[in-house]
């Protein structure tokens, strides 16, 4: 595997794990991290979260990653993958890992 690919995958793995933990802790989901598919819809036909959960989730993400999430588009928090992509694009790597 190319080192570039490896780095991208590694980023996804790490962010996914942390996002899933935010989901499970903040929303008190009765789930383990390996019971949440990264590409599954969080809202609607999928995990079935509601609009209250959306706000609690976003606050949790902002706290965990020390970042402001622009909530004008709900496509960012459609799934763990979309959240990961948002974070990869916006989080200062040093700041995010120095927790």
């Amino acid at each position, binding site marked *: 595997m190319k080192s570039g690919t490896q780095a*991208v*995958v590694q980023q996804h793995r790490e962010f996914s794990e942390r996002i899933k933990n935010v989901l499970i802790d903040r929303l008190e989901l009765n789930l383990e991290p390996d019971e949440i598919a990264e590409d*599954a819809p969080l809202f609607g036909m999928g995990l079935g979260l509601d609009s209250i959960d959306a706000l609690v989730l976003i606050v949790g993400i902002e706290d965990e990653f020390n970042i402001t999430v622009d909530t004008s588009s709900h496509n960012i928090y459609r799934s763990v993958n979309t959240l*990961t*992509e948002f974070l990869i694009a916006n989080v200062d790597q040093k700041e995010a890992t120095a927790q």
Partner: protein
Amino acid sequence: MSTMSPLHERFAAQGAVFEDRNGYDIAVRTIGNKEEADAIRNGIGVWDASDLGKIMVRGGAARELLDRTLTGDIEGLYENAIRYTLLLDEDGRIVADVQVYNNFDEFMVTCSAGSKARVLKALEANNSGGAEITDASDKQAVICIEGPKAWQVPQKLAGLDVRSLRLLTFTECEISGAKVLLARIGYCGEYGYTLFVPREAALAVLDTVLERAPEAVPCGRDVQDLLRLEVRSFNLEKDIPNGESPLQAGLHWMIHFRKSEFVGREAIMREKQLGVTQKLVAFEVLAENSQFSSSDIRDGADVIGRIVNFAYSERRGRPIGLAYLAEAYGWPGVDLLIHSENGEIPIHTVSAPFIHTESNRIQIS
């Protein structure tokens, strides 16, 4: 001789093309895949799903039977609610995807026509409590209505405010004098409603739908594959060609992991503990319309996956697809290669959905 839907003549009158699918005469195309896709994505599409398997499960033991057999939480399924879930075999392989409707004193289990026999068999095999299981498939016609404007239809048909019918819930109403079960459930990522109509009233109700929503376009079945792929809506025939597991396909949300019993549970929990070896991942082709000549997906010279679902999406402007990739590659943002008749083409894994639907933009409930 294929079984004909009670709605056959209306679709025939629209010039629909019919094909035999699982012993049913199905309207596969009406005005053309592209035009039908446009209707469902921008307006309202209507199609016939009467071949849907409908199994009624009644009696005191019904809920427990379904909860023990299927992967989802049926114990906690409220009245008037729908659970989209799976039936697995003992080895954890998907037998069928089903929808369970809790209609007070009776549960309705719906599934594709091709799965019905196996679903019936599994329910009967598990029926130690003596629940009453009936195949009511031929008794009801099914009309699907989907599109960003589809939310207007229940109002026009039965005076139902769209906000009063939440996703995955249903209600009973009267349309053209017939008792109709109106469910809010869609398959293509748009506002979707499914009507279960007594066979005798099928034509009258369809006529009422088309009359009250004149902008609704009658569609065929074939366009569904592309529309479902665009929003990564589960498609059993395409996504599970070879007994792949629900965990590999990313269907964790259909499984109630805290439940102590469901068919295939042991296999699922074992696989979960060991970790999946392959994952179903979305990808787009970084070229204009092209067809693949081999389903192999390569990282350089190594074959690390295979395509299972593939189509050209006008809305994405590219060919899109789903592929099983070795777990190490099963994440968005990875560059890989596929083979076409013109040589190697780059592809890029992405997160779903491939498109943002118009329905998503409309905030109603």
